[in-house]
């Protein structure tokens, strides 16, 4: 009896120790996240480097993006500036901000060609610095480096409503022909969008902040909803690598849907199953 008990202990003891050892290094609770990350990495690598898949891929039309060119053309005709601002909610560490700067790059290339003024007020000094680089390079690429004015990319205020008031003032006084509100916005969204509306500007908005989407939809001419902002940067730039990652997003969506369906079936057939409880 005693020996029997002892045996169980030794058998169980060993793997337990092993688990503890692994546990000290790896956060096993994060294993599903890690596997998901591996799948994501493989999907992105596949869509980026698998040439056949790359060539045939076309992105569906996104309403509002066709309007970008029109919005810039309008500014040229009216001889009024274009205003692009990434919102108060973002910082450079946020992927949304990078996607917005990607769109900025395409917009800047066109404003350089059309020779219209591009205003870029922001609340974040790092975003300001990166935006200056991005715009300068776009002007170079368009062949008009001399048209770039560094003072049009300005740091206004770190405070949310200081930023809102400053941009509101710019819109009211300079009456931009077109306004791009792309990035992460918080409560300042409607202040900017309504002021733009009063000033009679064409407005293209896009954000990952879901509450503000409601306001943009009501107050702006075109609104990119959530993920559309990421897709837009690929659509505008026709950049093969961005297109590839949009395809990767679609593949992952199919995987997610498939896993959910499988999980629902197994949850209904075997109510105690829990492999899907990540």
């Amino acid at each position, binding site marked *: 009896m005693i020996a029997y008990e002892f045996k169980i202990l030794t058998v169980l003891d060993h793997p337990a120790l092993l688990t503890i050892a692994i546990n000290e290094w790896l956060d096993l609770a994060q294993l599903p996240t890690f596997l998901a990350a591996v799948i994501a990495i493989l999907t992105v690598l596949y869509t980026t480097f698998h040439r056949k898949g790359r060539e045939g891929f076309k992105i569906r039309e996104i309403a509002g993006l066709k309007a970008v060119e029109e919005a810039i053309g309008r500014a040229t005709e009216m001889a009024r500036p274009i205003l692009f601002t990434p919102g108060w909610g973002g910082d450079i560490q946020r992927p949304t901000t990078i996607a917005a700067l990607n769109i900025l790059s395409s917009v800047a290339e066109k404003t350089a060609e059309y020779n219209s003024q591009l205003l870029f007020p922001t609340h974040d000094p790092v975003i300001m610095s990166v935006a200056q680089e991005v715009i300068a390079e776009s002007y170079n690429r368009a062949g008009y480096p001399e048209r770039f004015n560094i003072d049009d990319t300005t740091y206004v205020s770190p405070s949310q*409503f200081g930023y809102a008031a400053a941009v509101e003032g710019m819109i009211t006084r300079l009456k931009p022909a077109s306004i791009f509100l792309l990035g992460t916005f918080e409560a300042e969204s409607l202040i900017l969008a309504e002021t733009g509306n009063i000033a009679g500007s064409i407005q293209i908005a896009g954000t990952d902040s879901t*509450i503000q989407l409601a306001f943009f939809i009501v107050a702006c001419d075109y609104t990119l909803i959530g993920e559309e902002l990421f897709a837009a940067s690929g659509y505008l730039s026709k950049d093969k690598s961005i297109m590839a990652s949009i395809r990767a997003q679609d593949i992952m969506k199919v995987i997610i849907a498939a896993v959910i369906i499988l999980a629902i079936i197994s949850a209904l057939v075997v109510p105690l199953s829990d492999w899907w409880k990540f």
Partner: protein
Amino acid sequence: MNSTQSRHLAFAGLFIVVTVTMLLDISIVATVSNETKRMFDYLDNLPDSSVIIVSFDHEASSLPEMKPLGLVMLRHLFAKDHKLIGVALLAEGTGVGYRLMQETAKEYNKEYGRDYVFLGFKPQFIAAILSMGESIKGTFPEDYLGNATSQIELLSDVNNYDDVAAVVSLADGSLTTHWIEYGNEKYGVQISAAVAAAMLTTYDPYISSGQLKAMVGGLRGAAEYENLLGIGGSGARSMLAQSSAHLYIILLIIIGNFTYFRSRKKG
């Protein structure tokens, strides 16, 4: 009527509706929604004298909404004799949080250092949340008043989230998401929230997934909570103005549609 005139008229209407209803100065007892009831029950069912972190994750500009919410939360928690640790993840929440805790503590005869403590502001909220998961005293070597946290009685047995029963995040924006994605996801601490009404729908998926235990929102939520606690407060006092303004906005939407359809009929 041109668009500027109609806009000015709409503005003036809102101004009048709010001013008049506020001058009437009437308190209204709000009927309680299920959402607020759940939050109340959740906090009410925590064992007495639990250690709870109250995080002031809002700025000064949203105080009209956040202060009544913060007050009802603190009143409920103090009434249940919980031990409260106040922190602020936004700089502007710091002074506000300290003052609110101090005022409500007085109402309930609570002693600083034994019943509650305010640790102050820590920049970089994600890192702050993660770092408290390792060591709260390490994250805040000193409290807001400059006392060494190692000397504070309340904190003597509190190392990290393992010793904390719940986090109540008072947020006017998306900071509660970070409590969920880092505090709960990585350290498993239970999160609940009192948020600006605008944020309620943002957090719905997290309520549904259980990552957020319960939430209460907006001035209306504060008024409902005051009702559950059986006390009056600024929530109840603002209800008439609040609801009248909603009805006014509804009226504007109807007028907007009426003129739209009339002009469409005319072609």
